Structure formats: C-alpha cells, structure tokens
C-alpha cells in the first residue's frame, strides 16, 4: 500500500510495508464487517408502524455470544499483528547487522549535519567529510548511524527508508539502514523543534558505488593534504 505513494528504498522498507499491509487487511475486514452490520441494522430496524421493539437484555448466554465470539476473534487478530510488529521492530531497531560504513548525524536548530567517513572509511579521522543538509550514501551498503542532537529533540526521518528515530540531546543513538534504491530523496525532521522546524529538511543522495567514489574524491581532492590538515590547523 505504502509503495504506491512512496518508493521503498531500504532493505527493511519491505518488512514495514508488509506489516502495514497485514494490519490493513485484518483491520479492514473488521471495519467493513462492523460498518456493514451497523448500517444494515439501522436500515432494517427503522421505525415502522405497528412493529414494536423487542426486549432483549443481552445477559443470556445465547445472546451474549454474538459479542463474545467476535471479541475472541479480535484477540486472535491482535496476536497476529503483535507477532508481526515484534518481528519487524526487532529487525529494524534491535538487530544491528555489522556495519560496512558509519555516518554521524547531528541535528541542531534547524539543520542536519552529516559527517561521512571519507576515503579511509573511518569516522573521526582527518578526511571526514562534513556536509550540511546533504547525506551521500552508497547503494547496497550497510550503514550504522550515530545520531545526536545539539539543542532540542529532533527526529531523523527518511520516508523512503521507512526509518524514523528521535535525536535526544545528551545521547548518541545508534541504528542502521541499507539503501537499495539510487536517487535523491527527502530527509525530514519529524519532531517539533522550534520556529525553523518547517525548514529542517535535508537531501539524501543514494549513489552507485562508482558515483559515490567519485563524490568522495571530489570532496577530498588531495588525500595527502587532507591527512596533513590537523597539523596545518594547529599551526594556524
């Protein structure tokens, strides 16, 4: 259902969409059934001359089973939904597959800063590429993210990945994603974060391996110079 509106761009997007579809079918069944009976009864038992209402207490077993049986069936549906929800949640939020690369994501009023690892694929080194409101990823690569907030609560939301995670000041929250679809997509801030909340969007670029390598190279034209940067900085 969701894919018709927005493409699925991560390995787990399909799991979340599947969970939503399951709920849609189960809940849709109950919804249509209840509304059909509801409107059917209103129509059938509308006031007619010479036809008084029946006296039904609903306390006898034979009457009560009309609500107890559906109530157990609802419970059965709940079990299916819970089972699905736990599986999907575990996969997306609890499991942490080994990272091929790691990015650091910092939310602050009202921008996202993305620190990419650079040519050496290590974060926290001199060749890191920090970009404001631009996240560049290599397709089919498992990323860990380290999510931080500088001031207030923000929420890192990537609809194509079906991912959302609040960023909390004072914490570093780790999660993962693996993009599967190249292209440019929206990154949102999904938690009210002040006057500029409506401006706090960023661009996600998912690139093929070659494109990504070219981007990394373009951002660090002289690897050697980059390696010397800390000393330069100190001298200055």
């Amino acid at each position, binding site marked *: 259902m*969701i894919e018709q*509106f927005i493409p699925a761009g991560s390995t787990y997007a399909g799991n*979340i969409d599947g*969970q*939503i579809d399951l*709920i849609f079918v189960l*809940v*849709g069944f109950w*919804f249509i059934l209840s509304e059909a*009976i*509801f409107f059917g*009864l209103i129509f059938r*038992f509308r006031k*007619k001359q010479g*036809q*008084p*209402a*029946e*006296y*039904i*207490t*609903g*306390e006898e077993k034979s*009457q009560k089973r009309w*609500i107890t049986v*559906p*109530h157990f069936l*609802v419970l059965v549906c*709940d079990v299916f*939904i*819970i089972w699905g*929800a*736990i*599986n*999907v*949640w575990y996969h997306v*939020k609890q499991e942490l597959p080994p990272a091929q690369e790691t990015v650091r994501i910092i939310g602050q009023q009202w921008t996202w800063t993305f620190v990419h690892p650079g040519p050496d694929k290590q974060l926290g080194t001199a060749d890191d590429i920090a970009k404001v409101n631009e996240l560049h990823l290599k397709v089919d690569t498992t990323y860990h993210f380290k999510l931080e907030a500088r*001031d*207030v*609560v923000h929420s890192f939301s990537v*609809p194509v990945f*079906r*991912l*959302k*995670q*609040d960023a*909390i000041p*004072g*914490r570093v*929250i780790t999660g993962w994603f693996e993009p599967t679809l190249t292209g*440019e997509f*929206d990154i*949102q801030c*999904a938690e*009210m*974060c002040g*006057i500029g*909340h*409506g401006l706090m*969007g960023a661009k996600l670029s998912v690139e093929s391996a070659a494109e990504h390598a070219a981007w990394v190279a373009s951002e660090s034209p002289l690897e050697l110079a980059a390696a010397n940067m800390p000393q330069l900085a100190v001298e200055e």
Partner: protein
Amino acid sequence: MATAEVATHHDDLHHHDEGFVKKYLWSTDHKMICFQYMITGIAMALIGGFFAYAFRMQLAFPGMEVPLWGVVTPADYNALVTNHGTIMIFWVAMPVLIAAFGNYLIPLMIGCDDMVFPKINRLSYQIFLLSALVLLSSFFVEGGAFGGAWTAYPPLSSTAKYSLTPLGSTIWVIAVALEFIAFLLGGINFITTAMNSRAPGMKLYDVPIVVWFIVIASILFMASVGPLIAGAIMLLFDQNLGTGFFNPDKGGDPVLWQHLFWFFGHPEVYVVLLPAIGITAEIITVFARKKLFAYRTVLNTAIATGVLSFTVWAHHQFVSGIDPRMAHVFSITTLLISVPIAEMIFVYIATLYGGSITLNTPMLWALAFIGEFLIGGVTGIFLGASGADIYFHDTYFVLAHFHYTFFPIAIIATFAGITYWWPKMTGKMMNDTLGKIHFWGTIIPFNFIFIPLFVLGVAGQHRRIYNYEHFPDLAVDWMYDLRVMATVALLVMIAFQVVFFFNVFISLRNGKKAGNNPWKANTLEWVAPSPPGHGNFEELPTVYRGPYEYSHPDREEDYWPQNEPA
C-alpha cells in the same frame, strides 16, 4: 403539568431575587455551572476552530494573506497548531464533556438536588475560567504564544533561547496546571456525589451508563494527572529557576517529560472518550426503544479499558529513544486495549438489533459517533503496532487518526448531548430539520477534511510544517490538491455551524414547549420539570428499576420510567 408550571414560576421568582451576578456568575447550582462550562467550552471551541482555519489556509495556499489573521509566519503557525491542540483537548473536550455534562447529568440522573460540594463546584469553574484567560493572554505577551506543540517536549519547552517564547512557554504551563486543578476539584465532586447521593432504591447497576462513565473518567483523570502536575512544576522550575530536570547538561533527561506527559496523556483519551460514549448509550437506547445490550458487560469493558489505559503510554514514544526492547511490551498492551473497546462497540451495534429506530437529530449524532469513531479505532492499530509505527509516527496519518477519535468525542458526542438534553435544559424543542441540515453539513465535510489527511500521511507527510515547499517529495501537485480539499471542507464545515446557532436562537425565542419528557425516556432527569428549578425535583424520586427498560413485554407503553412504582 399545572404543578410543573407553578413550580417553574415559583423558581423564576426565587432566582430573580438572587440578582444577575448571584444567579449567573456566582451560582452554586449544578445546572448553572454546567451552562458556564458549556458556554466557555463553546467559546473556546470557536477560538480553537478559528486557529485551525488560519493554519489550514496557510497549508493549502502557502504565503497567502489569511482573512482575519494576515500572513501566517512560521512562529504564528507553531503557536496556532500548539494552541489549537491545547485548547481543543483541555479547554473544549474536558469542560464540555466531563464538566458540563457531568454537572448537569449526575445530580439529575441519580435523583438528587445538587452536587455534594456546591461551593467546590463553583470554585472549580472559576479556576477553569481563570486558566482559559491565562492561556489566551499568552498571545499578547512579548515573544508571543508558546509554539512547541501541545506535547511541549523539553528542552524546546524548557529553554527560552530555543523556543524564543520566554513568556509564552511559562504561561502555557501555568494555564495547563490551573486547568488540572479545576478538574481535580470537579472530579472529587462527581465521584462523591454519584456514590453518596443516589435516589432511594437506586443500586449501582441502576445508575445510567453515562453517569458511570463520567465517574470512571474522573477516577482515571485523578489517578493519571499527578505525574503530569509534577512534570509541569519541574518544567516551570527548569524554565524560570535554572534547574535541570530535563536538561542533559545538568544531568537531567528530556525523555523523562515524555513519560510523565504520556502517562497522563493516554488515559486522558479515555477520560474524554468515556463520557462521550456514555452519552451515546443514553441516546441510542431511547431512540431505538431498546434495553442496552448487556449493561454489565458495557460497564466491565469501560473499567478494563480504564485499567489498561495506564499501561500503554509509551506507544507514543516508540522512536523517542527509549530502550527498544520496551516497544514490545507497549505494543502488546496497546493492541490488547482494542479488545474491550471493540467489545463496547459491538454492544452498541447489538443494541440496535430488534429496535424501532427513529432517526431524529440526537440519534443521528449518536449513530455518527459510532460510525466515525470506528475509523479512529481501527487506524489506531497501525500506530500501536511498533513495526508499522516507525513509519507512521508523527505523520499526518497520526493526525487523521486522532482527529477521528477526538472529533467524534468532542464535537459529535457533544452535539448529540446538546440536542438530546436541550429540551430539558431550556424547556424548548429544537427544530429537527435545521438540526439535520447542521448534522449533514458537519459530518460530510468532516470526512472530506480528514480522509485526504490519511492519504497524505501514508505518502510520508510529516506534521507541524508550515510550508511543504522545502520538501521536494511533498511539494507535488496531487498533494497540494488534497491539502486544498481538506481546507475547503473545513470552511464548509465552519459555515454550517451557523445553522446550529440559528437553531439555538429560534428555539429559545419561538421553540415549542417541551414538557417534562418529550422523548419518552426512562431516566430520572425526565421526571424533573423542564427546565428544572433550583433543587431539581418537586419531590425527590425513588427508583424501582434500571434505566433501560424500554419495550418491556409486561407493559403497554414502550418505556418504563425508573421512578414509577411497579
């Protein structure tokens, strides 16, 4: 009839002696306090509705000069959505459903002359009025009204340099805290009165469902509000005294507030739902001429829902940085709550079976409550299931979902209650044709507002954004078309409210006299004169049976008032 008129006449004289201030502003009469709450609540609803109009115009036509408001700046937008939410929940749903209907119905339906603590009752309204004025004053202070969402997550709400509304945020917290005090006082009264002042012969299972539900709602409110009041005080200290309860730099934790807020916030949903669904029970039984199906089951489902509602709060926080293992627990409890609520809806549907249904205005509203609330209920499952909520959290899907619960509660059930008890409150009938025009003119646009918003939410539109042009995936034509559709539907719905006020006006002026019991209903309020004078009953009633003995086979008449000896 003659005696009733004499009694009313006598009471008019009695009231006249009290003077305007004593009668309308300083009254301890539960009915007058109902009207005070009701009128204040409706006035606040008009303000909250006006805010919705202003920000919906901005969403459909970004940057336009909105008539009566002007250009909606980002700061305006945030203040409007924040206060729309705050007002509609705390200053509309709560005062109208619990305070106004609770005040009016409890003494009349249990057959006593007033609340047990009439002066506390008066104080409750006065504090409530003060809280409303305090909240509205925040629009006129330097920096403007608070704009950090009605959930007020710190550090945004606790830190002036982040929110840029140094006074607005403090005033917001004070107003909310005052409002809670008002409802604590009201709640004490409701519970005590219902437990102690029932008419002779009225056993617990003879109490009308709406009274039961208002009492259960008051208990839920009293049991859940403590942590939030504590939270509000900590927030005030963080804002003004430099403490750091929610500030990580000083060893605090911003997520703590979210727990305190939602521990109250989720039971709060049921606090307003229960009176609404109780009103529905009264109306459906009367206009289907049916006994309520399985009275005790209805009561048990409400109690079960109330108890479970204390265990579900963190489903608002799945992605908020809580330990991910906790999500499983809250997913399970949240989905379990669907069982008693579904059962309650089944009971209402079952009550229609074998009835003789009259579709007049109050019945249309009551039935619409069930039909529309069902949409709110089923869409909640998507959000309670942790896996699906990762995507839906803070999208318009959430927004549409809770408007499909709160609109039926705060608007549909309120109109059901007003149109049903209007003859009792005023002694005059309302015009049924105008009532139906108002009904359809509200219900149809309501669905045209929020169904497009479900679709936008499914497509990934996130909340509280004043202008979607900064998000290329959301700035496409078909999404703007849906936003325009929702806004136009809102304008139509607002326009149709004029019909209601016109109906009120002509009913008060020229309405047909109602008599004591125009709907041929069983419950005790219909024994009293319309409108009941000070002291309610000419002679305090005695109760012989339950409230829903309609179409009893032993009786020729299809109703059997609770006070009529066998």
